[in-house]
């Protein structure tokens, strides 16, 4: 082990110890902070927004975007834009009604809206599938990070992060402690912003060298042609509509006291993410100035400080970005694991006919399953760029939960049969494309583009199936639909018998 590895290893150890410590003592800590007359102190939208940001900004945002910009140039900026704008759609169409529905998870919403246990089960399975697809690249990112900072084999990363997350979740820590998650956002922002500022100063001191690039890099859609245009639109659709279907984001909205607070929270999230996503492209562009080739583009953020600043300052900055990256894996993975384990234990493990487990045992078993499968997948599946793999999870979410939420909230004729048809068609379409892409299929270019970015066809297909299925079964519109929709859409300030 060389001296080079020291800052990275120190950073990883510090973040890991801090996370486990907060996980173990955090619950007690959160209990003793509150005192008399706390009942009116609900979580403030600003704090909740930071917590959503902390849980949402994953390895894909922290490492992936910079790598994609380095390799493919300006058209990759759609990723950060889409990941922010997803909250705009959420704000306008979903946030307040979803909160007013009283649902905690997406399956809860499906049950409340359609009154069907079968749809609930289907949604639970989808939550698990999307969660796994989202967790896998997080674990792969951890592998890359450990490899880049300490030369460890890439399979060690998933194992370490998986183990830390598991210990953390099982010890009861991190369990939606808003304050801890909110702190994670500011940690990630600092860990990315501070080195970026220093590197920009260094770049200015060097006389602002311009990157050696061609038009294909600096102009979006310069050489993509029709396929490039399709890919871009598909990406926009997936990221704009996928955010609302992410299991760990939706559960955070429950913390808001009412629909109005849910809107305020979402608005603040938009601002926070807007600020954060300005930074990764800076790394991408600076990377282009100093290097065009890296063994793994995803490691750019981690390598750049040392490339530009050999010496102790570079080491310190490297330590900082490594700490931020590790915090990103841990917070996103913990949030997702808790959301997944909750759904798994409530709807699947607890329903096993013979083995009725106690609540805690079911939750622990579910956490192990929730972490183990994406861990294995992270090692077994060939490495796709982190941001792309996460983009696929967004595509699946956009093809399944987006139609369910939008039609469920805004269309009164939705039926359980229609919803099931849309969910299944959307999942089979987008999920099939994901399997194809992750298994490395690449022949003919048009088919490859269609399957690498499935959202542009799978989302409309799912919507169409849901609408058609519902129109064919008008007698199955749930009896309570009108009452529920009134409750979803009436502002809290309007006096109304909501029973």
């Amino acid at each position, binding site marked *: 082990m060389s001296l080079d590895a020291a800052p990275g290893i120190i950073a990883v150890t510090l973040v890991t110890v801090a996370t486990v410590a907060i996980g173990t003592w955090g619950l007690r800590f959160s209990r003793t902070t*509150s005192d008399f007359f706390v009942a009116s102190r609900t979580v403030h939208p600003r704090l909740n927004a930071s917590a959503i940001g902390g849980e949402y900004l994953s390895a894909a945002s922290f490492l992936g975007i910079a790598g994609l910009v380095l390799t493919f140039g300006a058209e990759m900026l759609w990723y950060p834009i889409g990941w922010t704008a997803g909250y705009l759609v959420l704000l306008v169409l979903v946030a307040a009604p979803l909160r007013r529905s009283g649902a905690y998870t997406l399956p809860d919403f499906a049950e409340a809206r359609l*009154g069907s246990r079968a749809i609930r089960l289907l949604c639970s399975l989808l939550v698990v599938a999307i969660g796994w697809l989202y967790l896998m690249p997080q674990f792969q990112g951890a592998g890359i990070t450990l490899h880049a900072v300490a030369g460890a084999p890439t399979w060690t990363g998933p194992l370490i992060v998986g183990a830390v997350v598991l210990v953390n979740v099982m010890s009861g820590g991190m369990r939606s402690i808003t304050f801890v998650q909110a702190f994670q956002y500011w940690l990630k922002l600092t860990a990315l912003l501070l080195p970026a500022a220093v590197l920009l100063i260094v770049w200015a001191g060097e006389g602002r060298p311009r990157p050696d690039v061609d038009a294909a890099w600096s102009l979006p859609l310069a050489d993509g042609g029709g396929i490039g245009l399709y890919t871009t639109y598909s990406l926009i659709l997936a990221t704009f509509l996928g955010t609302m279907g992410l299991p760990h984001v939706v559960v955070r909205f429950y*913390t808001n006291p009412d629909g109005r607070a849910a809107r305020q929270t979402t608005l603040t999230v938009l601002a926070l993410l807007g600020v954060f996503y300005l930074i990764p492209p800076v790394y991408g562009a600076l990377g282009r100035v100093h290097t065009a080739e890296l063994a793994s583009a995803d490691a750019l953020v981690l390598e750049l400080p040392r490339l530009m600043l050999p010496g102790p300052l570079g080491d310190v900055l490297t330590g900082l970005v490594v700490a931020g990256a590790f915090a990103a894996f841990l917070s996103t993975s913990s949030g997702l694991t808790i959301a997944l384990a909750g759904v798994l234990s409530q709807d699947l493990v607890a329903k096993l006919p013979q083995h009725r487990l106690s609540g805690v045992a079911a939750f622990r078993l579910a956490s192990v399953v929730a972490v183990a499968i994406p861990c294995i997948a992270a090692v077994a599946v060939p490495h796709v760029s982190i941001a792309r793999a996460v983009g696929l999870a967004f595509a699946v979410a956009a093809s399944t939960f987006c139609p369910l939420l939008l039609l469920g909230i805004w269309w009164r004729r939705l039926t359980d049969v229609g919803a099931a048809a849309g969910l299944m068609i959307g999942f089979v379409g987008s999920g099939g494309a994901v399997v194809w892409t992750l298994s490395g299929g690449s022949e003919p270019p048009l088919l490859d583009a269609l399957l690498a970015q499935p959202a542009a066809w799978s989302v409309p297909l799912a919507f169409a199936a849901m609408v058609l299925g519902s129109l064919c079964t008008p007698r199955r519109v749930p009896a309570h639909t009108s009452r529920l929709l009134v409750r979803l859409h009436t502002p809290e300030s309007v006096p109304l018998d*909501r*029973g």
Partner: protein
Amino acid sequence: MALRRPWRRTHLGSEADRATFRTLHTASLASPALREGLTVESAERSIRHLRTLLGTPAVALTDGDRLLAWDGAGSGHHAAQTAELATATLERGGTRLVDPDDLTCAQPDCPIRAGVVSPLVIEERLVGTLQVFGPYATASLARAADEVAHWVSGQLELAELDASRRRLMEAEVRALRAQISPHFIYNSLGAIASFVRTDPERARDLLLEFADFTRYSFRKHGEFTTLSEELRSVERYLLLEQARFGDRLRVRLSVAPEVLPTTVPFLCLQPLVENAVRHGLSGTQQGGRIRISAADLGQECVIEVEDDGIGEDPEKVRRALAGDDASDSIGLGNVDSRLRNAFGDDFGLVVETAPGAGTKVTVRIPKFASGVHA
């Protein structure tokens, strides 16, 4: 192979067995709708299955004086006649055959020539009719219609039972509201009075708290509320009790803000805290400590109310939870049954206690339960 064949044939039962199964299955399809009571909607959802059960060309369900649903042929020109048949049956009672003369029909190919009308009865009250139509009014059709009408009546009676059970629950909540003990009101006002001269400002504040507390407790509507509202009322209650007991009552409240929006049954904490105050303070001069906590456990929220007082005999608590009116634990059984009723049997109260060892009551509330909202 030869040995297994007979087994295979009997495995789904004989022909008669299978007919029974089919009948039972069809009946089970119709029953959920009927269990909601006799309405247009429930009639429309169940009538298809009733016709399958009877195997006739057309079936109608009516209430006292109008058609609720029609299934089968002839809905256009015969549906109008059902209301008349219904009123006639309700006047005379009993199953009645309808002659072809009464069913005037202009269409030669219409399969409806005769019918049977059976009354639907809930607790000896005639509420509607089941009307079965076909080419002939045979004795077996009359018998079948009569039996199905009996069965439908049974289902409707169950619906009535559900409704009355719900009314009983509401009455219990009302009773709980009225149960705010006269002692508490008397003692609070006494405590406030003692401050009027020495600390008028505090007396005024306490009076306002008292007003808010009673307004919340006597509020008319809603079976559910949010944990935040419920805790605020508990805080007011404790403030008033502290005015009376002073330093003898020490309270520690620790609440995770994430669970405050959770929907809980109205007045589900109040009785628990009242018990804790009484147990924590009785029989000791030093006073007692009460701890109330609400923690976030992912899909659930866990609320604990604990005191370090005299505790209680577990057997007595068990009887109180079973609904036996033990005078010492007012409302415990009521809270327990309302929690079970709203969230299912997994979510009853858990009471840990022993004489001299204090009491801890744990309430688990799911963050989402279908049909439960504030």
